[in-house]
């Protein structure tokens, strides 16, 4: 079945004078998926999102959301889009409940049941004043306002800073939204948060898209990591077998990236006395670092991360 594009950019460029915000970015987010948008600070994630929502002007390129032009039909698009900005303020001196109701009324939407339900699940007190909230609680208000109006597309710009239990609940909420057919575009540099919920990931660097891939495919491409520690020194060439793409040695400890032939590698390793052995998959964090390291030929960055 053909996938339906919800948000699509073609050669999107946004310049800040001579400085590149985003350059030639072409990306498609499909209906019903959760896409992670990853990159370090200053990579262009927020610029991309704000341009897509017509909060700032684009320099060149095309953006269509729900088949509509993002700038010309901005108001129509916003009726179907929820947005959590990366950095935002709340109207002061009002209760959270009043503030959220105010936003619902601007959306001409009466889904206060969902608002209350989301607040309960995220442990947000609706009767507190907005200027009394901690950073984490303020983020919860932002998350609730982005999700409460049952929008078809939800865009979240770096929703990190929740405590671990609430973070888990937040991920559950996102998965539930996805099950209901919602499309979620979520940017982050806290990769562990995104890893557990995303179907696909786009990595951006210096305003340009590095890769767009399914998380599963990405992991298969990059393989698994075998870490072995021997009691005695061994010759590294003994471990250079078919299916092993990288070997990194740190005294008696070896870190191998394996795509296939795992049993052959283990047999070769078992010829020596093994002190420790562990098999891991690359976390998104390490994948992310790996992509960067490969681009900049700094492989030690990845291994140092283990």
């Amino acid at each position, binding site marked *: 079945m053909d996938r339906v594009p919800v948000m699509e950019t073609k050669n999107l460029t946004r310049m800040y004078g001579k400085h590149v915000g985003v350059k030639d970015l072409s990306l498609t987010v499909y209906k019903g998926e959760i896409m992670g948008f990853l990159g370090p600070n200053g990579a262009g994630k927020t610029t991309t999102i*704000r341009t897509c*929502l017509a*909060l700032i002007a684009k320099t060149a390129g095309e953006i269509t959301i729900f088949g509509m032009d993002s700038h010309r039909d*901005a*108001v*129509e698009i*916003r*009726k179907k*889009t*929820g*947005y959590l*900005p990366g*950095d*935002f*303020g*709340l*109207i*002061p*001196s*009002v209760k959270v409940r*009043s503030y959220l109701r*105010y*936003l619902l*009324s*601007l*959306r*001409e939407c009466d889904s206060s049941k969902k608002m209350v339900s989301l607040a309960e699940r995220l442990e947000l007190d609706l009767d507190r004043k907005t200027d009394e909230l901690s950073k984490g609680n303020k983020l919860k208000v*932002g998350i609730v*306002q982005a999700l409460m109006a049952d929008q078809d597309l939800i865009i979240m710009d770096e929703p990190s800073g929740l405590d671990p239990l609430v973070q888990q609940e937040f991920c559950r909420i996102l998965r539930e939204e996805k099950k209901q057919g919602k499309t979620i575009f979520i940017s982050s540099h806290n990769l562990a948060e995104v890893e557990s919920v995303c179907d696909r990931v786009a990595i951006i660097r210096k305003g340009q898209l590095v890769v767009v891939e399914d998380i599963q495919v990405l992991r298969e491409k990059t393989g698994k990591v075998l870490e072995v520690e021997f009691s005695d020194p061994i010759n590294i060439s003994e471990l250079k077998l078919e299916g092993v793409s990288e070997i990194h040695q740190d005294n008696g400890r070896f870190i191998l990236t394996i795509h296939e032939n795992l049993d052959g590698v283990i047999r070769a390793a078992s010829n020596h006395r093994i002190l420790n052995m562990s098999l891991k998959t690359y976390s998104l964090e390490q994948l992310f670092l790996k992509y960067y390291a490969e681009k900049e030929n700094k492989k030690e960055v990845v291994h140092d991360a283990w």
Partner: protein
Amino acid sequence: MLGRIMYMEFRTGWKGLLIFGVFILVISAGIVQIFPFYRDSLTEQLEGANKVNLVLPNEQGGNITLSWEPLENATSYMILEDIRLSMVTAKLTYLGKDTSITFKKDFEEKRYYAVMAVIDEASDPVLIGIATTEKGEDPFKELLKNPAYSGFTGGRSISMLEVKGFIIFEFFGMWWIVAGLFIAHLSVSVIASDFENKRMDIMLSTPISRRRYLLEKFGVMNIIALLIILIAIIGLAGGLASINALNEFSADALFLSSISCLPFLMVIEAVGILTAVLFQKVRTGMGVTFTFVFANSFYTPLVAFPEALDG
């Protein structure tokens, strides 16, 4: 729903509005209370002009006789002479105990003589009155015709002895600057603070167009401007009633003279909103808008003043 942004502005900003409203009420009602004392003081000064008598000679080169009513407790009298009513370049022509002097008229131009009584060495001399060499002229009435005053009032004849004139000078003279600065401050901050406090992204992620957002903010400012004008009218009416001067005004005149300030405040609102959108910073926007308000206060003496002089 139309008006939601306006409602939220009032809901979050009502305290500031209330404080300013009370301030305007106190100013408008309170300033009228000064009038009776001011009128009595001015009347006393004007009567002082009658206490000095200047007799001109029938022919050029004759003697001028300047006499004045003696003042109780005066130890001596001094006379200052100047060609300007302001007396800023006056020179002392007489110091003594006489209450009448005679001197030769050997000049053509108009001159002014201020007669002052010296009570003791510790206190300042007391003005008895001012006389001029121009026949049939009252220097104090001339003072009120001075271009500095007529320019300020747009060339209209306004008497400070009447409550109407007093209100025009003392209330409306400063009211529009105070109201203008308040409106300038509000109109900039209602928008620029949304940018500065990063509230704009969430606001504009709702299906609210920029046009509607700005129009609702402009609407809020218009309602506030109207409210403070009405408060000023109520304050003035209350103040006038308290000194039994309300019957000197018609309700229409009082209302229209106050409400005529609204277009001016609306222009300030528009400038404030424009600068807030352009600069997105409260301080910068306020600097520009305040400059606009003060530039208007310079406009009056710089443009209306010469026009009055030409008239």
